[in-house]
């Protein structure tokens, strides 16, 4: 299990290849990558991501441990960036390894649903018109409820 909270970009191909390497017992590797999306009509200059050092790592570790306990996972990788990111840059990735694909997919969704509303990150969108904190969505709470 590896958790990384970092400002620097990551290499998706290398991370996925390293994660998948040498796992003859794992028949399924799923990766999900979140990308900074531009805003239609009001171009995004930068997305600033703030986090709570210490709690972030603890919360992500706890989520990954829950995923391992809940699904038949061989391994989990979570990388999440903070700082100033441009449209098209990768914000985060999760990877899950399981003997079968159903668990690998479900665990990746579980991790994403938790990351969205239980990991202490806050996003702010900066455009030529000004800047705004991204509001949490009700649908993210609904997505989380299905796992309880």
């Amino acid at each position, binding site marked *: 299990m590896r958790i990384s909270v970092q400002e620097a970009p990551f290499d998706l191909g290398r991370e996925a290849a390293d994660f998948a390497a040498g796992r003859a017992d794992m028949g399924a590797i799923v990766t999900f990558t*979140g990308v900074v999306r531009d805003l239609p009509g009001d171009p995004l200059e930068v997305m600033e991501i*703030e986090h*709570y050092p*210490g*709690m972030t790592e*603890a*919360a992500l570790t706890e989520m990954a441990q829950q995923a391992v306990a809940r699904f038949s996972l061989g391994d989990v990788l979570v990388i*999440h960036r903070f700082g100033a990111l441009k449209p098209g840059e990768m*914000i*985060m990735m999760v990877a899950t390894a399981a003997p079968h694909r159903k668990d690998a997919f479900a665990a990746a969704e579980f991790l*994403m649903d938790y*990351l*969205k*509303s*239980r*990991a*202490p*990150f*806050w*996003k*702010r969108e900066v455009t030529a018109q000004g800047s705004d*904190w*991204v*509001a*949490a969505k009700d649908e993210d709470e609904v997505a989380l409820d299905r796992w309880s």
Partner: protein
Amino acid sequence: MNVLYFAWVRERIGVPREQVETTARTVNDLVVELRAREERYAAAFEDLSALRVAVDQTLAEFDAPLDGVREVAFFPPMTGG
């Protein structure tokens, strides 16, 4: 006790963290003390339904006790992923 603020709560109060001398027994008591300080605190804590709290870096409820607690953080709902 260390009190931390994130995102727009930090902006409204004007500092990211501060040392607070308090005898508050719960998070709610601490909020009452902070609100009474200055207008910027009253503004930040106006609507508790818009806020979340972590006690010693674990998400908590506003009625959580503060016995032996070293760090409390206030912030808006999280937007990770």
